[in-house]
């Protein structure tokens, strides 16, 4: 395949789409599928056939449209007509609306001008909800693989890295390491064999950004990986995806097969001397395997436990070869950066955090789902504009970003800009993009306990501070929520959080105390109510006041 073939496929696909007067898009990502979106799609197709309209209206399965809570979602043409909570029985009404402009039943009409949709800026998700994730032609028609061709025919590896560096892109897995710098390190590392790894072991509770990208637009990730491989000099790539994402894995497999048969992956890509093969490795359910050295150990076939860094994977990673490891969302940003230039990307966002970020908005908020917003937007805008505020007019309490590694941000910081450094300054982290909203019915001790429970069960057990520290902290939090704790426990909790943060081997342990630390800092009154008054202000825990302080120690 060469550049002309690519243009031909794009033109043909666009032409065949233009033959239809209307296109009805049905979301077939995991969220909507679980609400019977596939049946809606079949019903729409058979209804159109029955009416003899199959030549002027097309039904297309597309990726995630974002507002997962209102699924299954259906959209028509350029999304000015949208439908929510659709059932197969609504098929005929939808066709009436699309074809003949008849008003649809109010229950399924969705306002396409909601702040949830208009407040977003889509780069990573530009094709989500627009293209069929199982057809490479759809991706190519949306300028797909154009960036890869540009890179391998016109740019030198350093030229690619220059654009990525210029874009100011930082790792979207959570830590925010400058992507250009990482690529430069791997490029400069000596060694004939190098690897590119895509980290798709997304495990934060309530987070589904990477899953959505893989289910909605898998080719975008493959293209990003191929560009990265060309830039750093790798010829082999792995996608480490958790096995709990069967649909994402299925679509990735289809995408890899299609790309290989079209000469976009494999040997002599685009008739050049560039080779790049991609394989999928499935994670077996360990959260810690999202940590890069544990992930590498797991791909090598060993027990998924982290090892001390340095050496960093960029110098010595998979099978001791220099390895570039980036998150799904990071790779998904690469093609647009190459297509439109690093300067364009750097013009979006804040001074130190460029571009956009995908967030999975969940918890006590009206519009739960997937959003992509420019860096620097305030938390208030995300929660109250895009998220539509708190249900039933309850009072906002805190927002938890970054999953078990992040912290709870209280109301007084709602107006801080969302970027790596601002979130860190209030004790939380950007993380991979999970955002859980809590209102007055959430107990912060309970929240801290939940996340500590998660870290405790997911600790690999290698280093002492994380293995025993998370267990001890969890036990203290449990005693507090049961009203069995004393002030000594609180002191011990303080000591443990500091020590586990400083002494743990990997990111899991080093960040595990964050939810506890931030709740201790911002919601001490709730801890005191549990301990001193035997009362849970939110009514979640059932503390029983004990007269004597619980016995601690020997």
């Amino acid at each position, binding site marked *: 395949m060469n550049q002309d073939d690519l243009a031909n496929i794009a033109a043909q696909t666009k032409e065949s789409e233009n033959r239809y007067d209307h296109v009805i898009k049905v979301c077939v990502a995991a969220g909507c599928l679980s609400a019977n979106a596939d049946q809606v799609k079949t019903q729409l197709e058979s209804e159109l056939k029955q009416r003899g309209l199959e030549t002027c209206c097309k039904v297309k399965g597309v990726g995630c449209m974002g507002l997962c809570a209102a699924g299954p979602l259906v959209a028509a043409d350029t999304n000015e007509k949208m439908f929510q909570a659709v059932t197969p029985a609504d098929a005929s009404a939808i066709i009436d609306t699309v074809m003949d402009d008849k008003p649809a039943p109010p229950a399924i009409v969705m306002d396409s001008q909601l702040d949830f949709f208009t407040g977003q800026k889509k780069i990573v998700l530009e094709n989500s909800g627009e293209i069929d994730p199982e057809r490479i032609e759809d991706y190519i028609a949306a300028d797909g693989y154009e960036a890869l061709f540009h890179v391998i025919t016109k740019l030198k590896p350093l030229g690619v890295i220059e654009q990525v560096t210029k874009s100011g892109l930082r790792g979207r897995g959570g830590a925010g390491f400058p992507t250009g710098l990482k690529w430069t390190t791997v490029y400069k590392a000596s060694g004939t064999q190098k690897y590119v790894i895509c980290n798709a072991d997304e495990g934060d509770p309530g987070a589904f950004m990477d899953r959505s990208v893989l289910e909605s637009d898998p080719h975008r990730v493959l293209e990003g990986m191929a560009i990265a491989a060309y830039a750093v000099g790798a010829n082999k790539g792995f996608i480490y995806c958790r096995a709990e994402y069967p649909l994402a894995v299925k679509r990735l497999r289809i995408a890899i097969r299609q790309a290989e048969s079209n000469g976009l992956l494999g040997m002599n890509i685009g008739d050049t001397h560039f080779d790049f093969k991609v394989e999928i490795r499935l994670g077996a359910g*360990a959260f810690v395997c999202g940590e890069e050295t544990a992930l590498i150990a797991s791909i090598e076939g060993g027990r998924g436990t982290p090892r001390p860094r340095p050496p960093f994977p960029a110098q010595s990673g998979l099978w001791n070869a220099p390895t570039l490891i980036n998150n799904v969302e990071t790779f998904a940003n690469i093609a647009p950066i190459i297509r439109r230039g690093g300067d364009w990307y750097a013009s979006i966002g804040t001074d130190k955090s460029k571009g956009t970020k995908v967030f999975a908005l969940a918890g006590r908020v009206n519009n739960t789902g997937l959003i992509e917003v420019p860096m620097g937007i305030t938390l208030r805008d995300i929660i109250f504009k895009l998220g539509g505020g708190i249900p039933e007019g309850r009072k906002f309490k805190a927002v938890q970003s970054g999953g078990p590694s992040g912290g709870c941000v209280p109301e007084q910081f709602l107006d801080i800009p969302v970027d790596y450094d601002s979130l860190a300054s209030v004790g939380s982290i950007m993380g991979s993009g999970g955002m859980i909203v809590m209102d007055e019915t959430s107990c912060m001790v309970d929240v801290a306990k939940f996340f500590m429970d998660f870290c405790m*069960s997911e600790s690999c*057990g290698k*280093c*002492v501070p994380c293995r025993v520290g998370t*267990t001890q902290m969890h036990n203290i939090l449990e005693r507090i929520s049961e009203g069995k704790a004393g002030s000594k426990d609180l002191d011990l909790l303080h000591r443990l959080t500091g*020590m586990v943060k400083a002494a743990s081997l990997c990111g899991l342990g080093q960040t595990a105390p964050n939810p506890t630390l931030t709740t201790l800092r911002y919601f001490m009154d709730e801890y005191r109510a549990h301990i001193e008054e035997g009362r849970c202000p939110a009514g979640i825990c059932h503390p029983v006041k004990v007269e004597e302080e619980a016995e601690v120690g020997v």
Partner: protein
Amino acid sequence: MNKPTIEICTLIIENLECGGRSDQTILEVAEEYGIFIPTLCRLSGLSNIGACRMCMVEVKGNNKLQPACVTKVQEGMEVTVNSERLAEYRKLTLEMLFSERNHICSVCVTNGHCDLQALAQKLGVNHITMPYIHPHSHVDASHPRFIADHNRCILCTRCIRVCAEIEGAHTWDLMGRGTKARVITDLNRPWGESESCTGCGKCVQVCPTGALSEKGQAAGEMLKRRTFLPYLNMMREVGR
């Protein structure tokens, strides 16, 4: 891959000017200069894994603590081994280990010869401030000569490493996560039924606590015979 060139570096450890090769760790250089850094999972001759976090040190200019057993020395490094913070963290680490399973010294076969106990005495840990977790752990006495008492195990993985790296049998390994992690023989079969175990007993001798012991020992009688340890490095070299 090109072999990295080895340089001679000067560095300061605990206000003492030291010299070392760039392929040496902070711990190795400190030992040469007689500076004590506490360790538990580390055993000279086995690979270093940086797991127990006892040897954490402060390196000037780096806000993260570094494990001395795996951190290579660099020119101009300034290392602090003893500080109030490090002492607190080491005490807490030991307390965590004591609280994790069941370490009742008075009834333990290695009482008086135990690395964990010795370190606690040296660092002044004479009681613990956190509640015991006391999980249900079993004792595997199926082997004709040895006993594995998981109640005393601190998951240092010395047994795993000596078995895989020196004996070459790889009988021992780990299963489970977090505090539920256990060292196992073969695929979690009783030690006595293990087909890969050669019965060499190196694991028993390198075990820092009373988790692995020889049968027929009463409390305090299990002396670890580690005279073969200096040869571990030589054995590794021959293996290569």
